């Protein structure tokens, strides 16, 4: 077989160009840190990375929602716990007031404290998270408004919804109407406390007992709400764990597709460099053999 000189040089040159391209490709991967310069490098991988990136953004949204719901519910939990505490105090005050030996001054003192508890509850009912009342639904201003001793509910009963996973929506606020008994006809906690204070002043034991029963109902409602809150907050925690686990696994998958494994890349680079040197050597050899060297 004849081999033309040009072909010999050309094939040497082509081999050189190929190995050089290989070295260049690995070097670009190492410097950019990404195995995918464009989709053409790995179409399936690029498609997967595109979806994973969106999945990560989605999880970031859930995490943000969970954070928000947790803070929202946390504020609500503090308010409900305080409300529960003061209501228990109100119950014991009501029981004290039934003591037959109490004078008018003592009953008046108890009545005043009951009114104080009512005012405290009004403040608790207006607890807000970032300017939004946690018991007020979509309301943006005070929800429990006291006018001349009568407290009215100015909020809405809407649930502020937070999506915490693809399939789960969490209500991040508390229904003030329900918590404070505005859904009962005139037996909201504020009205009950006011009436209780009035009856304590009047010293009507039967009426006090009747109002105490209603106060107990309100207290139970508030305490039940604490249980609901606890389970919601627990649910948020587990949703957060799921989201974080998914984020880790998605990120690991993204990294496996996209990120350059430096150890592997460095080895590949060394191998490519070696191939390059070997090619250079063989080209140098092409030239070293010629009849010209033997002709005098």
């Amino acid at each position, binding site marked *: 077989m004849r081999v033309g000189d040009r072909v010999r040089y050309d094939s040497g040159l082509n081999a050189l160009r190929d190995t050089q391209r290989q070295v260049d490709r690995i070097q670009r991967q190492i410097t950019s840190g990404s195995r995918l310069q464009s*989709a053409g490098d790995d*179409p399936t991988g690029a498609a997967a990375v595109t979806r994973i990136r969106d999945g990560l953004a989605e999880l970031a949204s859930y995490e943000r929602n969970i954070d928000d719901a947790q803070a929202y519910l946390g504020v609500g939990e503090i308010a409900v716990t305080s409300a529960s505490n003061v209501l228990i105090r109100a119950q014991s005050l009501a029981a004290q007031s039934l003591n037959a030996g109490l004078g008018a001054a003592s009953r008046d003192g108890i009545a005043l404290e009951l009114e104080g508890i009512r005012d405290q509850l009004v403040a608790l009912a207006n607890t807000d998270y970032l300017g939004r009342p946690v018991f007020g639904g979509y309301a943006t201003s005070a929800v429990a408004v006291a006018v001349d001793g009568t407290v009215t509910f100015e909020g809405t009963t809407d649930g502020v919804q*937070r999506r915490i996973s693809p399939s789960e929506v969490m209500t991040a606020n508390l229904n003030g109407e329900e918590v404070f008994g505005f859904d009962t006809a005139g037996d909201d906690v504020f009205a009950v406390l006011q009436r209780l204070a009035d009856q304590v002043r009047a010293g009507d034991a039967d009426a006090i007992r009747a109002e105490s029963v209603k106060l107990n109902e309100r207290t139970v409602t508030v305490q039940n709400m604490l249980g609901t809150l606890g389970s919601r907050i627990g649910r948020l925690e587990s949703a957060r764990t799921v989201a974080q686990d998914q984020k880790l696994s998605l990120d690991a998958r993204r990294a496996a597709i996209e990120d350059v494994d430096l150890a592997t890349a460095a080895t590949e680079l060394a191998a490519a460099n070696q191939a390059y040197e070997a090619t250079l050597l063989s080209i140098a050899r092409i030239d070293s053999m010629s009849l010209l060297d033997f002709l005098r």
Partner: protein
Amino acid sequence: VIDGLMIGVNGLLAAQRSLDVVAHNLANVNTPDYARQRVVLKEAPPVTGFRPGQGAPAYGMGVVIQGIELMTDRFVEASIREQKSHMGSLTATADLATRIDEVLGRTDGGLGDSVSRFWGAWDQLALTPELMATRNGVLEAGQDLAGALREAKNMIDDVVAEADFRLRDQVDEINTLAEQVARLNGEIMSVHGRQGVAGDLITERYRLVNRLSELAGASLQVNDDGSADVLIPGGMLVGGSKASQIEVTTGPPAEIVWSDTGLPSATRGSTGAIRDALDGGFDDLYERYDLLANGIRTAVNALHAAGTDLDGTTGVDFFTGTGAGDLEVNAALTARGVAASASGPSADGNQAVAIGSLRVQAIIADPSDPTTPVATASASISNLVAEIGRRAQSAERRVESATAVGADLEVRRGEISGVSVDEELTDMLRFQRAYEASARVLTSMDQMLDTLINRVGVVGR
């Protein structure tokens, strides 16, 4: 003795001419597509009928140069042309696919991220629907997304415009090459059948036609008079010493026609591939981006129009436009006008929740059924990226394997036509020796003549 001188001179001339050709070959060792030449020597026939009936055996008159042979194999050359045409087509296709891949196949900072951020902005708005900052965030993310989709369409437009420009450029080159081949044909015909050396002209013609094959898928048909017709799929580009011209219509789609008659022509090679690509080769890409834009616009608008803004207004669209190219955030929309609320109150972010949830809903239709949404925006973009990447990858792989075939053909061509320095040097030695030997013949003839002229008849002088 006179014959001997003639024979010697013939030998000298033949060796000299052969050495000239060796020198020519060596000089062109690096000329692309050069085909080596070889002097064809033949023994000169005896001069007969000169000495009648003497019974002396006839002897030859030395050597004559019969011609100079061009060492090519027309089948290999034809295969190379065919391969160049194939390669031209594949390379042009791969160039376009790679360009698209470079501009649209990015995995970071691309359209996918813009869509993700857009849904994320609605998710954020759902948390604090009463804040102007988050409302503005939604508008900005919407503008970013609309911009990214418009940009995608513009990028395809750019690639199309580039391809169109390249097509026209290459057709100009085809016409120039055709003129050159026609002129060469004329020159080759004028020396054909005479002692003139047409070898270099033929090599030149091969070179030009090879380029024509690459550009237009040309094939070559050699005629008896030495000229060669160049054929492209649309007809005869060069016939003898006459070249026809082709041109590209303004389109779209751009068509290749004969300049003189305006009748349709056709090419293969790179121009054929580019023309095919321009004739609807990008339609599916455009359509996919339009479907993406329309899917997002329709779904977001439906929810946005059903929502209520801070002033209680409903029924306002978020996006305007008819496709990817003109997608815009509704110019009339202000931060207050973003309909984040499902029922009206400013603190109600449920409509924003619903719009953010479009992230996981099938809102984008497939080209096979443009009216039924089947995929999420992210999945649709992911498919698009995969499709763009696959096209670039498979086009590049085809080029790679065709390049290997081309390299094999070049080796085969080199076996026949390539110049080997060692071989030429050996020939050089051979012809140099032949020259020396012929010179020695002349010397001895000269001595014989000297003997005859100066020594004969001096006996006894």
